[in-house]
């Protein structure tokens, strides 16, 4: 199923697929876990407080929470950059070891994309930058070349491959940064606020890139403050608050949990808010499946409020009739 996301520039609508509803019913094994992880920074800030969460294989997971809730710290733990003060990170059922072999395994499996692409890109050309990760895995040159070209194709940056990083736009740098981890063939790609600072079209392109990576069997984890995106896109939402897990679950359930929204200082997505109002006012039955984007909401309205019978349209009709009387 694909929905059309209307952009400011109506001439070029961008589509990105929305996951089917049934996917979540299939139980998935846990790919990456934090088990009772506690971490505090040298200045004493407790960033994670005995946090336990699991990332199911093959899912699209969105991590939500206010600034400073521990999202980035959690991601740095998954990438093996930070080490838990207590608790452990578990990959494929095995606790992560922090020796060279353990780190190589973790970093091949877990691709971490940083928020600022300038902190990730270092080489003089895009292609060289992408080749850095796979070369560190000790692959043969032919295999590295294939991986680099595949990553370039998947992220659609072929026209940028020979350019230096300073000649790229912000959105292009983001794609290059993703290509750099994709070339290492990770099972899970974890991106810290990948859509922050992107225009709507670049955001839609990035989301569809994540979708194609997901379709190819990869697990995708992103953090964002964009609740509409989280609702429309995620298979699973994780809400953090002050380094602790507040709730995890299907986006429509999480976003209808008033206590969670208040606790994590999250805004309810406008689609669900409108849905709530319409249910409350009796236009839509309260047992209807909650919509995940504007199109699904429009479909619901179309099903339950027919133009002839609904009070809304009859109101409009009488208004129009009144106007014609005056004329």
């Amino acid at each position, binding site marked *: 199923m694909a929905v059309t996301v209307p952009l400011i520039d109506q001439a070029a609508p961008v589509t990105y697929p929305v996951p089917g509803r049934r996917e979540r019913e299939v139980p998935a094994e846990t790919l990456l876990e934090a088990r009772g992880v506690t971490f505090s920074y040298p200045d004493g800030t407790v960033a994670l407080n005995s946090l336990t969460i699991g990332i199911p294989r093959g899912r699209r997971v969105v991590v939500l929470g206010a600034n400073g809730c521990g999202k980035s710290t959690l991601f*740095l733990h998954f*990438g*093996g*950059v930070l080490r838990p003060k207590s608790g452990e990170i578990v990959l494929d059922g095995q606790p992560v070891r922090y020796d*060279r072999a353990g*780190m*190589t395994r973790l*970093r*091949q499996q877990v*691709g*971490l994309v*940083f928020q*600022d692409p*300038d*902190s*990730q*890109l*270092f*080489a*003089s*050309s895009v*292609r*060289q*930058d992408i*080749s*850095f*990760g796979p*070369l*560190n*895995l000790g692959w043969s*040159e032919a295999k*590295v*070349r294939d991986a*680099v070209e595949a990553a370039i194709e998947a992220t659609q940056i072929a026209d940028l491959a*020979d*350019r*230096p*990083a*300073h*000649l790229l736009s912000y959105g292009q740098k983001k794609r290059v940064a993703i290509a*750099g*981890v994709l070339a*290492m063939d990770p099972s899970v790609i974890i991106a810290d606020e990948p859509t922050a600072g992107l225009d709507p079209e670049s955001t839609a392109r990035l989301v569809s890139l994540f979708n194609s990576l997901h379709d190819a069997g990869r697990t995708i984890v992103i953090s964002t403050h964009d609740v509409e995106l989280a609702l429309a896109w995620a298979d699973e939402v994780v809400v953090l608050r002050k380094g602790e897990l507040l709730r995890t679950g299907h986006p429509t359930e999480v976003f209808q949990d008033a206590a969670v929204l208040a606790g994590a200082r999250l805004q309810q997505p406008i689609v669900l808010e409108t849905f709530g109002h319409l249910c409350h006012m009796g236009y839509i039955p309260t047992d209807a499946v909650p919509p995940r984007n504007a199109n699904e909401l429009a479909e619901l309205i179309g099903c339950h409020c027919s133009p002839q019978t609904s009070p809304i349209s009859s109101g409009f009709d009488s208004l129009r009739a009144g106007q014609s009387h005056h004329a």
Partner: protein
Amino acid sequence: MNPFPIDAIAYGNRLRSAPAAEKILFAAGAVALCVWFRSLAVTAVVVTIVTAVLRLRAGIGLRDFWGFLWLPSGFILTGVVPMAIEFLGPQTPGVLAAIHIGSWHLGVTSRGLAQAMAILASSFGSLSGTLFLALTTPVVDITDQLRRWYVPVLFIDMMMLIYRFTFVLLATAGAMKTAQEVRLGYSTNRLWLRSVAMLASNLYLRSQMRAVSLFTALSCRGYSGELRVLVDRAPWSATRVLGILGVHVLVGVWGVATRTWGWV
């Protein structure tokens, strides 16, 4: 679109796709000849050849080339002029001109002048050779070629990082300067000095943070002390290399000849 003109020309000129090895050979030969002969006659020929190759083969106009040559030439001239002027003793031979300030005698001797001319010739010639490479060859091609020649990895890594982060640093400094400017940070001379000082110290801190986050990001991609990247094999043609060497030899012959004839 590209705020860095040398970089833009390096990526856009007609010699861009020529093998870097050949361009490095041509430039290195030019520099070596100028440094070896230290003669204005050789430098004049080298600069003429470089200008012609840039104009005819790379499609880079005179104005661009001389525009970039002009600024560093200023540095060379300001360095060379004091070299020609020296304190004179009562017995100094070959004084061409002198002024006397009290008991001080400042002047130009033929030996000093010759020395200054030699420095001028070698540095100006080397400059044009280096600029030829900078204008025709993007840095990535140069580092690639150095890798193929087994230049020590540390040297190439440093070169690559300095190149990349020069632009990041420039962008950061530009953004900080704008932020200061809109808050009137440069409205008086006093404020100007204060703002520049703040910018410099902040830039240092930012660079430190950059280095830390770069290290983190590289570690996540398996960094273990060496920045290895893929390098393509570049073809080079024996005829062109021989042609380049031929030009070098001809200029060398010219250098020897002018020296025997006693020209500068």
